[in-house]
């Protein structure tokens, strides 16, 4: 069953998800940009699937458009969970 996302759980799931898709774990910080992490649109779809599995939150195209950093995604997930 999906659990409710809070800032800590959202960060944990997204950081783990980014590592899973191949980003260098030592470079994953809230401020890191997807460009710097070499995370592309296909990776972000995988992150969105992980978020939906974990938290039951659907990130659709418009939500993800314009996201630049790891922190942007974490904040978006927490905001949608509220």
């Amino acid at each position, binding site marked *: 069953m999906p659990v409710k996302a809070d800032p800590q759980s959202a960060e944990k799931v997204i950081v783990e998800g980014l590592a899973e*898709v*191949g*980003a260098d774990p030592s470079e994953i910080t809230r401020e890191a940009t997807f460009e710097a992490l*070499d995370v592309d649109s*296909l990776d972000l*779809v*995988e992150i969105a*699937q992980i978020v*939906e*599995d974990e938290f039951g939150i659907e990130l659709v195209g418009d939500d993800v458009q314009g996201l630049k950093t790891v922190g942007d995604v974490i904040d978006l997930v927490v905001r949608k969970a509220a």
Partner: protein
Amino acid sequence: MNRRVVITGTGAVTPLGVGADTLIDRWADGQCGISDGVGACREFDPLDFLSRKESRRADRFTQLAVVSATEALEQAGWASELPYPAERIGCIIGTGIGGIGSLEDQGAVLRDKGAKSVSPLAVPLMMSNAATAAVAMRFGLMGETYGVVSACAAGAHAIGAATRLVQSGQVDAVVTGGSESAMTGIAMAAFASMGATSPSGISRPFDARRDGFVMGEGAGVMVIENAESAAARGAGSVGEILGYGATCDAHHLTAPDPSGVQSARAIRMALDDAGLKPEDLDYVNAHGTSTPLNDRSETDALKLALGPVAKDLPISSTKSAIGHLMGAAGAVEAVATVAALRCGVAPPTVGWEQAEEGLDLDYVPGRARNLTLPQPAGDGRRYAISNSFGFGGHNAVLCLAAT
């Protein structure tokens, strides 16, 4: 226009190990990479060569191609920089089925978790041109690039198409070959269901006891270049693609035409293209699948195409040592053929013991045999043909020389 096409680098990953040298050394030594009824690349770990991200974005058939291409480009002296404008280098890699393992995995996700859980990587993993795309992207090749699909002839067709592309003058070089990794539940069950694979799990081409092919996986890639361009950059070569012939049986979806007429015509086309006569050949690398039908019709095709010379030529099947690599087979076998010519040996048809009536050619039983010295009247080089025949009646034959 200079039509000569030289091979400046080769690479392979096969059930006998990683590397083209490993393939020829172990095959010529009579070793067999098949165990438990399959030819798996047990010594291959993609993470030895690819980053985690590259690896998870590539089906195993793509991983095998990228690693083989890396070896070929290193041998060609391309490792640090491309010797020609990127726009004048092509990439053509064949496969029988493409990323069927990824397709099956995502089929299970669809069934168990629903459509929304299917991976966004599913298409780039499974598409049959994925290996070509990955190799072109890794090395920045921007000429004509595409995949070739013709079942078990795909590797040879790819090299043939690449040869024609170089000869056209549109490019200076092509990275070409074949790749396959299809030892999955559905593919294994499907080939078994049609009676194509060996119930005994033994690959023994041309032997009276043969009972089907043994599935294998792997890749073979070569760098081929316009001979003038290669000479201008001072590159050495390991071999030359002298000729190519391709025909279709138009007979049956899977069974070869038992007369061997069209496969024989492909052999003659390759020889004519090379400007060679049957008596110029030193070695034949047979398709030799270990199926009852292929090995008989191929034997007849060799007799039809080569005449009395067929009985005097050493003829062996790489599939006796690695199984049937399907869409990779023609490319891996072309790599092995050039290496055999360079070493001056005919590697054995491993495990061949029992003759069958009508299958009466010299299949090089037992151990590798030294090839006779190049013919005095010739140019000092040794010549061979490598046959590939695919479901669908596709016949592709390469005529090769070692330098």
